[in-house]
């Protein structure tokens, strides 16, 4: 009778166990923690029999189908584990391996450092090593790299993908910051902002005359005859049509041939012009993100708005774009529109590959501003701090200045003089 009762009990528990497990699976994902009250409220255990509950839960835990966790706020709680996972546990050969596996399992997507495993379990290193080796050979766990600690050997359950914190987000590939990818994407974003936030128009060469070069500042005071003819007349109809051809076919602008109109005003050049104040269509981060998404450049990584924001911020810090607030809209526009290159960056790159325009600097955006200090040899002199009259390096024997003044042949003449001096 007693043994019968026991057998009956075990059958009952077996049924309850399965029922409870199924019910728990219905009520939440693997990460949900069920407290004792939650389990009782599932109405599986008859009459809220705590002893029965204890037995059932114990059996489930033994089968690795439930994981007990200690929750600081709610006390003891349990999570369910899938049957496949549980099977993995049960097939493990010894307790040590089970412990190692469970600790890696608990670490989840963040992974865990092998030394942490050792410290937590207080086991001998060789044992841990063996266990890990076994688990790895079984394909249960995999080693991973964490961006924050690139030198630590970390392990993660093979079925999981490393979390974003561990991989560093979309900017990292295999634990390394993918600078090539970032630079490329920055270029694309910059081109997009540039073309969307500035008006591509044509402007007659200041000075009018063909060989006048590019005098940037309009000379005040004396107005030359050429200037009057060029700017005195307001935009004529021919110029407008000229404008039309350049905008519709940017390639025409590149060759500087405004032959489309067949007009005489071939002295104009294509430039970017700033938009009128209050322009409402400066691209926002959301628009840029959509553009990037639509083009499908980043086919294997998904970039959220936050990621694009990060990219645009970097461009802002680089001084390439600037934020404009028009009404409530936070758009971005290119800084110093007039100085921007009208030929897209990738075209310039191709040109370079073809061997053209090597004399032009290949940087995105406008040429940086310069001032007297950066132009003089002193501004970039490596020995500036030492340089003083009477010292070993002095202005009077400065080679950089001679180069700068285009007197390169003179250093030889100077050298003996210096040598003679005591």
């Amino acid at each position, binding site marked *: 009778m007693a043994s019968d009762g026991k057998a009956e009990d075990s059958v009952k528990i077996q049924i309850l166990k399965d029922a409870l497990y199924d019910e728990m699976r219905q009520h939440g994902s693997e990460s949900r923690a069920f407290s004792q009250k939650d389990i009782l409220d599932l109405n599986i255990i008859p009459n809220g029999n705590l002893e029965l509950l204890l037995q059932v839960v114990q059996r489930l835990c033994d089968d690795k189908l439930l994981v007990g966790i200690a929750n600081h706020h709610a006390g003891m709680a349990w999570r369910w584990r899938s049957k496949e996972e549980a099977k993995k546990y049960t097939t493990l050969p010894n307790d040590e391996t089970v412990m190692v596996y469970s600790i890696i399992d608990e670490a989840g997507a963040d992974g865990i450092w092998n030394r942490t495993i050792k410290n937590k379990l207080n086991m001998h290193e060789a044992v841990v090593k063996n266990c890990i080796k076994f688990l790895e050979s079984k394909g249960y766990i995999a080693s991973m790299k964490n961006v924050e600690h690139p030198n630590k050997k970390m392990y993660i359950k093979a079925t999981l993908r490393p979390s974003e914190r561990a991989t560093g987000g979309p900017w990292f590939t295999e634990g390394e910051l993918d600078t090539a990818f970032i630079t490329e994407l920055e270029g694309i974003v910059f081109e997009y902002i540039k073309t969307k936030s500035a008006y591509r128009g044509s402007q007659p060469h200041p000075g009018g005359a063909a060989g006048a070069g590019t005098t*940037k500042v309009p000379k005040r005071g004396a107005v030359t005859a050429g200037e009057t003819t060029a*700017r005195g007349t307001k935009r004529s109809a021919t110029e407008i049509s000229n404008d039309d051809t350049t905008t519709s076919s940017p390639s025409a602008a590149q060759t500087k041939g405004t032959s489309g109109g067949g007009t005489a005003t071939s002295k104009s050049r294509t430039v970017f012009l700033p938009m009128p104040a209050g322009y409402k269509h400066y691209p926002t981060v959301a628009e840029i993100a959509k553009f990037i998404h639509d083009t499908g450049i980043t086919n294997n990584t998904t970039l959220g708005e936050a990621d694009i924001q990060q990219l645009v911020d970097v461009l802002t810090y680089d001084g390439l774009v600037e934020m404009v607030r028009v009404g409530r809209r936070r758009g971005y526009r290119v800084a110093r529109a007039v100085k921007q290159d009208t030929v897209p960056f990738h075209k310039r790159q191709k040109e370079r590959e073809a061997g053209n325009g090597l004399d032009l600097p290949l940087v995105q955006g406008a040429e940086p501003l310069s001032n007297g200090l950066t*132009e003089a040899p002193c501004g970039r002199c490596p020995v500036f701090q030492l340089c003083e009259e009477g010292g070993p390096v002095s202005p009077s024997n400065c080679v950089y200045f001679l180069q700068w003044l285009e007197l390169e042949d003179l250093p030889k003449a100077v050298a003996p003089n210096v040598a003679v001096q005591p």
Partner: protein
Amino acid sequence: MLVTKPIAELCALLIDELHGELPSRIFAMLLSKGRSTVPQLSQYTSMTPRQVRHGLAVLQQHNLLFYHVDPGAELAFYEANPDHAYNLVRTGKILEMIDTTFGAPAKDVMQSLLLSGQTRISDLVAAYQEKIEQANKSAPGVGDDGDFGAEPNGADGDSQSTKSGGPLVKSTAHLNTILCRLVEAELIDVVHAKSFESSEDILKTVEKEVMAKYFPGGVKGNKAKAEFQERIAEGLRKVRGESKSLKRKLEQNGTAAKRRRLLSGISAVNGVHDEDMDPALDPRQVIRINYEKCLVDLRNRRLVQYASDMIGETTAYVYGVLLKLLTKDLPRCRSDPVMDAEGDNEESEKGPGSVTTEQILDNLKTSVDLSLGIGKAERRHISSTAAEKIESFPPKKKRFIEETEVDGEASADEDEGDDESSEESDYDSDYKAPATNGTNGVNGTNGTRVKFEEAAAPKERRMDRPSMLRQHLLILAESTQRFVRHCGSNEWTVDFIPVMDSLREAELDSVIERTCGRQGLRLVRILRAKGKLDEKALPNVALMRKPELQQKMLEMQTAGFVSVQEVPRDLKADVKKSFFLWFCDVDRSYNRLLDTSYRTMVHCVQVLEALRQKERDVLETTKRTDVRGREKDTMRKSYYERYSRFLDCERKLFAQVMRVDDLVSVLRDF
């Protein structure tokens, strides 16, 4: 001005360059020893008192010296005036500015004035009289300005060649006119007894006077203290105002001045001017150049260049006109903390006031095509409310709260008092209408094909000049640099302090970008935006690899652009656990940049000196009277080549000094 070693060196070199070695040595000694008497100086320099006096006289003549005689004392104390000495470097720039705004004759007068230091008007007139007579008698040619040391640029040489047509100043009446105009522009002011005293001495004298007059029993209590300060400021203002006496006198002769103001700008081009209109200036007055006002004009030029760099030429031109109108009555770039602290309510010169669109329009050159330089967008793409937003008060930045607030009040006051602007409000309402539908025509988005509808073209032409002008002004107002503030409907003003801040920052940025690359600039700007940042947080924001970033930061730390602070986590101060916070101290960077600039200028002049030493034999030949002026014909070919190459280098080096001075003025004076 704080005189550091490089400045002292630079000043001495400049004086040596322009006025010779004797004054230069005395000046250097004065800078290093402080105020001294003649016997002391002769002891320091081991020169005879006679020599010292000679040197002092030269310095005094060019206003490079202060002196002070205590009542009852036998000997005067002399003190160096480093500000004016430094200003010598700007000679070329000032002359060029005068040339472009007032024409070549005015430049000629200014140049004579710069060469001869402070001058009595009668002397100046006599000198010119002689020159004119000489020119009338003989064939033209010999200018008085032989080898003017700080000849800045090619432009100078050009004007000399054109000069051979005859004297630039045609008669003494013409000279008088020019002087009147310069005085009115405050570019020339009057020398008076107090202008030879250093500001500290003046302050002390004024303090003493105020004490004796109003507070014989001493200053007690807060109220009395405030009043004391007030009286001192007033006294100082009176002293400062003395140098403007000539201008005031001219202004009393109201009609002529007004006439001229109307004609100004035109007369410079035409050169023909009704000379009889101008009152003769008192020949006994001694005049000199007012560097403070010159700096205001130079600042305008720099700002125009900045706007041209940032936005575009046409817009920059508009900005230039606006600045010119705005600063007409602005006596100096930076207001004096004592004198201008409380006087803003009565003094009109405080705060730049505002300018209406109408005024700008009246002063624009008709040859300038305002349709250039702005993109076009459909009207529905433009938010006119955002563009036309009026900001009546200057932006309140943390650092500049006090100053800007004062500015704001002042300009607000002026707006009310300015009846001109209220008259013009009728016009304003007139062109508000076209302005709102002003930006029409093509759409600007680039991807789509731009289509010209039939209607668009005539519409294009109908956009009138005032509304185009408005567009430029609105762009200036919308810019991130805040070039212009739209302070009332159709009224515009410039908040110089924030604009100059942004210009300073731009200068610093360009130095950083040129020396440490774009990534360096990125890091500095991140730090500037976020304050102190942990080393570990930086790579995430900058999207840079850690080792590269660390290398860049170290590079910039050596260059003085960023600094690091170590914050230990616990008492043990374990280096491995400490936080390393990077930050950038902008002011420190500025100071360092200034120092570098001074030293660069010193180096340039020293390099020139070295070149002179090397080409000594050639240069000595050119000094011979039979060679001078005919170098090309008389000198051997190889010698002449060396000579012209030297001249090239000299020009380059001086131009370089000028360029560096541009930076110095932005950082220090504007």
